[in-house]
């Protein structure tokens, strides 16, 4: 087989030079930003080949973020799912513990990579969008560490329901700007960050938090998050002597999921599942499931599956908390869906709430509501699998930020 054929048959060679994954992705931005994203692409390509850059990033990942994160065998959940099985099944459940990272989620993997790039490019000011506040906190954290000005755009609605993270960002020295335009959630925060970038082209670096946006962001964020899957590969070989049989991760924009999935895309024996937030149910229209309930369109610099009406107006994503409620999804996921390489399912708010409590009680791990979605899916999947099936789920964030919301839903006053 020639090297060209290898690339053609690979799920890991995208995007192409135009930033396209099949017909998804691309660079749909205003002319003012076009030179900036071309410059960013150039800077990233150069940095990727620079050993000093890699060394510094690895050093920070290890000593600042706390990598590698453990791969943890979850014995009680494994037993629980086996007991649920009517066929004598139940998989062996592993968690990739990215919730143990500094700042409490996988987001730091990406913000470290991008801020080192910003410094190389001579940028002094960092802007970011955030939904639940996890990316905002991870951005404010690295901005503090590298002594850069940091401005975080956050929907006014999200600011209200994520007050602890807002305070964290402020403690870290960031300016948090409430966005009231549109519906005051993550997509509006991203619009506002793009408007800021257009107006401050000379000194500003836009640190996007998910594997979406114009090329090179989807590929770049994926690369920074692929540390998750690369570590899993080594750790499962050490623990079990073989590759996992399946991978499960939750999906909003899809950065933790693509980070886990990407290193395994060409391993045909590995089944891969992405889990979207079905909110009150995909059939109700109140959900955040772009792949299961949306259709292809163009927003925020890329072509991808979007929640939209028949007129192409973007509709609001709904979800129990903030974090997965983005009406789009990273373009690589749209492509992987259409190619059939990854299966995309969804779970409702209530299923996620149950999984949140189950995990806490059985494993002593309070998950964020985002990975609680992944776990609710595992709860459906595991009992149908054979006992020796190795399942790795990405525990991409911890639930401290969500305890108030969960208390509210359970009718508990704090």
């Amino acid at each position, binding site marked *: 087989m020639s090297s060209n054929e290898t690339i053609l048959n690979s799920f890991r060679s995208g995007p192409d030079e135009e930033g396209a994954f099949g017909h998804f992705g691309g660079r749909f*931005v205003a*002319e003012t930003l076009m030179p900036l994203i071309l410059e960013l692409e150039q800077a990233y390509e150069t940095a990727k080949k620079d050993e000093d850059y890699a060394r510094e990033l690895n050093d920070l990942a290890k000593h600042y973020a706390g990598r590698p994160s453990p791969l943890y065998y979850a014995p009680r959940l494994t037993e629980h799912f086996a007991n649920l099985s009517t066929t004598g099944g139940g998989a062996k459940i592993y968690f990739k513990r990215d919730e143990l990272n500094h700042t409490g989620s996988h987001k730091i993997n990406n913000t470290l990579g991008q801020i080192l790039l910003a410094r190389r490019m001579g940028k002094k000011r960092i802007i970011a969008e955030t939904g639940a506040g996890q990316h905002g906190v991870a951005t404010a954290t690295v901005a503090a560490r590298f002594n850069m000005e940091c401005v975080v755009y956050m929907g006014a609605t999200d600011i209200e329901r994520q007050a602890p993270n807002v305070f964290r960002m402020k403690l870290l020295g960031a300016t948090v700007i409430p966005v009231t335009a549109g519906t005051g959630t993550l997509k509006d925060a991203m619009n506002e960050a793009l408007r800021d970038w257009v107006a401050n082209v000379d000194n500003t670096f836009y640190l996007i938090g998910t594997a979406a946006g114009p090329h090179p962001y989807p590929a770049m964020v994926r690369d920074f998050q692929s540390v998750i899957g690369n570590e899993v590969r080594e750790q499962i070989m050490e623990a079990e002597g073989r590759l996992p049989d399946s991978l499960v991760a939750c999906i909003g924009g899809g950065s933790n999921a693509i980070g886990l999935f990407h290193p395994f895309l060409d391993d045909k024996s590995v089944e891969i599942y992405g889990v979207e937030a079905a909110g009150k149910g995909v059939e109700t229209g109140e959900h955040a499931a772009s792949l299961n309930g949306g259709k292809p369109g*163009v*927003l925020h610099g890329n072509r991808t599956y979007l929640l939209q009406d028949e*007129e*192409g*107006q973007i509709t609001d994503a709904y979800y129990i908390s903030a974090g997965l409620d983005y009406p789009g999804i990273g373009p690589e996921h749209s492509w992987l869906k259409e190619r059939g390489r990854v299966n995309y399912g969804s779970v409702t708010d209530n299923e996620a709430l149950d999984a949140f409590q189950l995990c806490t009680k059985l494993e002593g791990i309070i998950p964020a509501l985002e990975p609680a979605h992944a776990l609710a899916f595992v709860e459906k999947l595991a009992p149908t699998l054979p006992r020796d099936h190795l399942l790795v789920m990405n525990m991409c964030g911890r639930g401290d930020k969500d305890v108030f919301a969960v208390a509210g839903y359970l009718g508990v006053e704090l």
Partner: protein
Amino acid sequence: MITTRIDKRFAALKSEGRAAFVSFITAGDPDMKTSLELMKKLPGAGTDVIELGMPFSDPMADGPAIQLSSQRALKAGQTMAKTLDMVREFRKTDEDTPIILMGYYNPIYVYPANKFLNDALNAGVDGLIIVDLPPETDDELCLPARDVGINFIRLATPTTDEKRLPAVLKNASGFLYYVSIAGITGTAAPDPGMVHKAVAAIKQRTDLPVAVGFGVKTRQQVREIAKGADGVVVGSAIVSAIADSLDSKGFATSETVARPLALVKELSGGVFDILEG
């Protein structure tokens, strides 16, 4: 090359020795009936070219004034079909004023694009300005538009350097829209000196007329910019005049056509001031 209404209008104004006054309104703001009435009266108030905004839920390159106008139009039920209906209605009484649809790609993409181009052409649309379609995406809409005879108006900005300009000009037609500031619509005020320099640099590379917009709000600004450009675009100031005329519930009042028209009359005077010396 097909000669469009845009080509003819700029050629005629060149022989008159003055710049074009381009008015932007959002289609359906604050409702379709009022918006159509205003649109029909724009030429009489001094508008040489009409830019009609196609409302979008997420107008990323626009400032607050145009964002709000887009929201008003959508809330009032504006659709792409209604926007094209407005153009069709306008054409019944005005065969000459060029109409450019301005907006974002997604509503066109889902229409879908080829059907949109045919419907737009049949309705009497002359040009398109699609903010999030840079030259790198010309296969999407720019080249198909050219094939049916609709001009694709290209944006050049302060970040478009000499190296990039040829790519921007390559498939441009109608005129070139120079974005006078690095920023969003209706915010910072452009520096006429910088704008004239940038326009002069662009004109060395193309025979297309160059119109200038973003942040132009006063007659004085129109006059200054018109000295070194083939057209001046005003948008946010006009839609702000619409906003100011609405009642407390956001509905049109007897002033909703009159106020923006009065502003257009006042500002468009700026392109004649040069002639009068």
